[in-house]
């Protein structure tokens, strides 16, 4: 276990309730790991605690129980080793684009000269295609450009791991596509380790090596780990010509629509081992091959009835 770059073990989060009675845990028994250079996406319905998991990894929030160990050390607070791209870009509006990135860079390397910081920042802003806009204020940028600055800021501190909280959720489809392409290119070039939350199934398939599927909360768990088995040199334009693409996509959508709610409760444990969530490769399997270790069509309706009671 310790060989992995990042391991999450038995993570659990309970939010305090206003009344005396304890709330049910949002998620519990979360186990997964990420290796160096891996791009991992996490998908699940709202309320399953994806953002909480990311915040725990970022050190912004403490888990109720369980451990997050990165590079042999327990994650106990925010660190410059982990760069975060926030959903709402979180740029400081009173600083210029360059100022925002420089603020981060100066935090990481306080001893650097001003020129060195500017050169470093400009490099990363050019990488995201904003070389022309470095002196503008965030308010003068479009939503997509703002998010690019957020990405440049996170990359500029050269973190060991990048955490992306639904970075493209607020963007229109066209902008999202172009930035996905850019992110893909950057990640392929830098071999950055990335953990990303998304709601977008296509985005996950395009970017990820591994997709964690979370069941619905409360008592959310990692239901499955889907390996994206398509070759790494994907492009947004070509990806849907790969026969694996639709198999993976169907698998993901099927999970989100039909199966994500069947993992709660004690009954689920009979077929699901949260410590070792099944790893599936729907891309490599033929249309007929059922996925092993999964609830088959038969027990699922029964289970639903039990839960509905």
């Amino acid at each position: 276990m310790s060989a992995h770059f990042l391991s999450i073990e038995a993570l659990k989060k309970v939010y305090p309730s206003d009344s005396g009675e304890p709330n049910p845990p949002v998620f519990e028994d979360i186990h997964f790991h990420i290796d160096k250079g891996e791009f991992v996406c996490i998908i699940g319905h709202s309320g399953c605690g994806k953002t909480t998991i990311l915040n725990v990894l970022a050190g912004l929030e403490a888990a109720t129980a369980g451990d997050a160990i990165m590079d042999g050390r327990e994650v106990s607070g925010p660190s410059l080793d982990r760069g975060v791209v926030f959903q709402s870009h979180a740029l400081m509006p009173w600083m210029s684009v360059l100022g925002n990135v420089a603020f981060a860079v100066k935090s990481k390397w306080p001893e650097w000269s001003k020129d060195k910081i500017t050169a470093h920042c400009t490099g990363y802003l050019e990488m995201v295609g904003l070389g022309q806009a470095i002196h503008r204020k965030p308010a003068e940028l479009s939503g997509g450009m703002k998010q690019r600055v957020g990405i440049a800021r996170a990359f500029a501190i050269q973190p060991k791991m990048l955490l992306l909280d639904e970075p493209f959720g607020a963007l229109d489809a066209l902008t999202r596509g172009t930035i996905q392409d850019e992110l893909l290119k950057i990640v392929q070039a830098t071999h950055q380790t990335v953990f990303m939350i998304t709601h977008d199934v296509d985005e996950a398939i395009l970017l990820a090596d591994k997709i964690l599927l979370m069941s619905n909360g409360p008592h959310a768990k990692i239901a499955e780990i889907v390996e994206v088995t398509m070759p790494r040199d994907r492009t947004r334009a070509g990806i849907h010509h790969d026969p694996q693409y639709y198999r993976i996509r169907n698998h993901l959508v099927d999970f989100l629509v039909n199966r994500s709610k069947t993992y709660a409760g004690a009954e689920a444990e009979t077929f699901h081992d949260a410590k070792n969530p099944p790893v599936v490769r729907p891309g490599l399997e033929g249309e007929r091959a059922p996925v092993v270790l999964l609830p088959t069509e038969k027990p699922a309706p029964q289970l639903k009835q039990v839960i509905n009671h």
Partner: protein
Amino acid sequence: MPSKLSLHAALISILIFAIFLGAWQLATQPKESSALAGADAEYAALMGKGAEKTDGFPPPVKVARAFVEYLSDPFYDKGPNDKGIGIQLAHSLGRVGLGFLLAVVVALPLGFAIGMSPLLFRAFNPFIQVLKPISPLAWMPLALYSLKDSSISGIFVIFICSIWPMLINTAFGVASVRRDWINVARTLEVNPLRKAFLVILPAAAPTILTGMRISMGIAWLVIVAAEMLVGGTGIGYFVWNEWNNLALPNVIFAVVMIGLVGMVLDMFFGWLQKLVTYRE
């Protein structure tokens, strides 16, 4: 188009002012052939310059004369009861500036601390709520007794009235800095001082400046009343002194000056506010 609008507005402003002056002039027309005029002209002459006698509200011309007289030599000093308007205003502004500055020195750090810490906020809140509605002038006897100096008491009164809006706005502004920005600073392991000055202060600056602007407005209101009470120097004392002299044109002149200076102060803070406001 906007320039045309402002031109029209200016024209209407001038018109309103002219109507006002006309009405004023009409209302204060000297009454002719009053009983005194014929019979007691001799008596009146004995008593002084009969024609200059201050009867009733002064007409605009008289007030205009006071304007010209005081503004042509604003900085003369002929003893404690006869100083130029510039000197009087400078005294008032000095007191307001000093009291306000002291309030800034106390309110900003304290407001920062209260805004950052929910515990401190709750601990300080009852005191703020009780002290805030007290009229600053109610402090005057206590200030005079304990400070034993009328001028310092005036400064204290300005201090006590300026502090609340600044304190509350600073605390509120600091407490409501966007969570995201704080989180960015946290993930970047920014040290507390850098976080305070580079993240929280700029984020809260518009709210803080609003508090300062309100404080300055109140301080300028209060200084006039305070100076009427303690006397000595200042524009408030000038008003009171001229009232005792029954020199209404001078009173009107001083009232207008108070308004103009107040407006300039407010414009200055409005400008500062614009400077620190950021667009999202």
